């Protein structure tokens, strides 16, 4: 196994190519532009297609067309551009087509700014587009996971015939780490059961909202998403067996939290960590499996307002206090997390536990 030193965005793009992605349509926006730049060079090398679209609206629509043609396909964007992708994501989900979407999170609503953040959480996991759909959302915390989850995203998109989102952020996008890249996988678009390729001698295909052609669609679509929710939860649990307080963080903040757990343990403070790997479905099972020693929780989020907290509370049936460490636009230091956690443990012991 030869490791290769790669930048997060480049590694993610190479993983897409190796997963058999042969169409990419996208638009420049920091901090995801390297994905676009990498694929503009790489796609022609593997006989794939790259289009720099006139907008994110057009980019996701091109992806929609390529997916309907049976191809493995992807677009990527960030913040404001991710908002523009929502129309197409909803349509792709409605037509039950596979596609992979990348959102490299940046800070803020509106124009915001280009540095790392986790403020697109609700938009990513609660359905940013209109109507009744869900997407599996993977949250990589390293460059290797950028590779692994992008690869997995293409498989899950095909398995469920549904768009899948990889929710990266500016820090993971621009860090460099050694990665183990998978072998090249070839995807045969003509074997995709849904592929439009001209009707030939058979019946013509109508690739549109599947609700028009499925009896009892309400039950059908609920069952589809219920199955995804039941089977696709992924998480990592760190030192939760005897923890008093469990941190909850995904992506880049989960790495800081791992350091915080180690630091706390050196000080005799019993911290643990649950790192959601899938943000939808949120890993509720991870919380159901915790020992009784766990008295409270603290989410650590790169946003000025709590977001994951809501899903943690739902997973706990709101039975235990959930504090939060809201780092906003500042990357937190492990010691700051430990100190706040220690304070929360004291508060919980006293029975006063808010914020």
């Amino acid at each position, binding site marked *: 196994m030869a490791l290769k030193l790669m930048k997060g965005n480049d590694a993610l793009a190479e993983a897409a190519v190796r997963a058999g992605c*042969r*169409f990419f*349509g996208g638009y420049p926006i920091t901090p995801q532009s390297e994905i676009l730049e990498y694929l503009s060079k790489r796609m022609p090398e593997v006989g794939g*297609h790259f*289009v720099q*679209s*006139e*907008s994110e*609206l*057009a*980019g996701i*629509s*091109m*992806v*929609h*067309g*390529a*997916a*309907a*043609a*049976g*191809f493995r*396909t992807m677009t990527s964007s960030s913040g404001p551009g991710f908002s523009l992708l929502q*129309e*197409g994501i909803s*349509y792709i989900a409605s*037509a039950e087509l596979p596609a992979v979407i990348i959102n490299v999170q940046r800070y803020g609503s509106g124009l915001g700014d280009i540095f790392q953040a986790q403020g697109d959480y609700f938009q990513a996991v609660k359905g940013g587009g209109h109507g009744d759909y869900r997407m599996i959302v993977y949250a990589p915390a390293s460059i290797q996971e950028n590779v692994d989850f992008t690869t997995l995203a293409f498989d899950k998109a095909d398995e469920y015939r549904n768009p899948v989102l990889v929710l990266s952020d500016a820090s993971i996008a621009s860090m460099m780490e050694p990665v183990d890249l998978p072998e090249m996988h070839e995807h045969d*678009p003509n074997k995709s059961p849904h592929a*439009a*390729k*001209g*009707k*030939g*001698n058979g*019946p*013509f*295909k*109508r*690739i*549109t*909202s599947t609700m*028009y052609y499925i009896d009892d669609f309400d039950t059908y679509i609920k069952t589809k998403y219920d199955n995804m929710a039941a089977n696709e939860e992924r998480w990592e649990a760190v030192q939760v067996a005897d923890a008093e307080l469990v941190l909850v963080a995904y992506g880049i903040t989960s790495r800081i939290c791992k350091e915080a757990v180690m630091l706390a343990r050196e000080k005799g403070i019993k911290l643990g960590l649950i790192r959601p790997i899938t943000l939808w479905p949120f890993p509720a099972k991870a919380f159901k499996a915790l020992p009784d020693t766990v008295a409270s929780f603290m989410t650590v989020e790169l946003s000025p307002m709590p977001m994951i907290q809501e899903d943690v509370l739902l997973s706990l049936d709101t039975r235990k206090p959930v504090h939060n460490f809201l780092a906003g636009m500042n990357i937190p230091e492990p010691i700051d997390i430990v100190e706040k956690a220690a304070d929360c443990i004291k508060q919980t012991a006293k029975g006063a536990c808010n914020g």
Partner: protein
Amino acid sequence: MVERLIPTALVEDNKFCPGCGHGIINRILAEVLDEMKLTDKAIGSMAVGCACLMVDTFGVDWIQSPHGRAAALATGIKRCRPENPVFTYQGDGDSMSIGFSETMYAAFRNENITAILVNNGIFGMTGGQMAPTSLPGQKTVTSPMGRNTDLTGQPLNIINQMKDLNIGYLARGSVTSIKNINRVKKYIRNAFETQMSGGGYSMVEILSPCPTNWKMMPDKSLEHIDNTVTTYYPLGEYVKKGGDSNE
């Protein structure tokens, strides 16, 4: 004995309003696809609007596009499947209002696709609202006093926007008479021949009546196109890089 010849793509009766031009356009498009032996290979990118009514009646592979994005979808399809004839079927609201950017950029990139743009000067499916193509003074449900061009702009002539681009084929026809129907059929054929020979972007704009929303009898609607609409949107071939086609 008289045999009724129906093009293979017309698998059911169309669902358009009485007097609507879409039915004629569906027919000649289906004839061209059959005559060029393209029906089995064609992939259509379908607009939102009255075009949606074709999804069960016009038997080619279809992909339903989001409103306005048909040309972007067609781009994705055609890049992936360059051997297949790929076309969009759109109204003027879809292609020239919400989808103006996608329509223009497909032409600007000279995508090797064919766009069939049906211009009835109105949003038909949603009940006759003003479109960018509505004529000055035209009364619609969103311009009840008549279109005020000081506030809403002049009628959008998409061919003027495209004719200086590096594209393969550009024409405008109408469906107001047998002569015009035969002519626009030839334009559609020229457009698909351009695509199949790799000649780049081809577009045919078709002036079409909407008696329902124009609140005009079908015969008067056709006269209105001939006498008035064509003064804003002159008929003819505007860009023709390939050879002529014989009917």
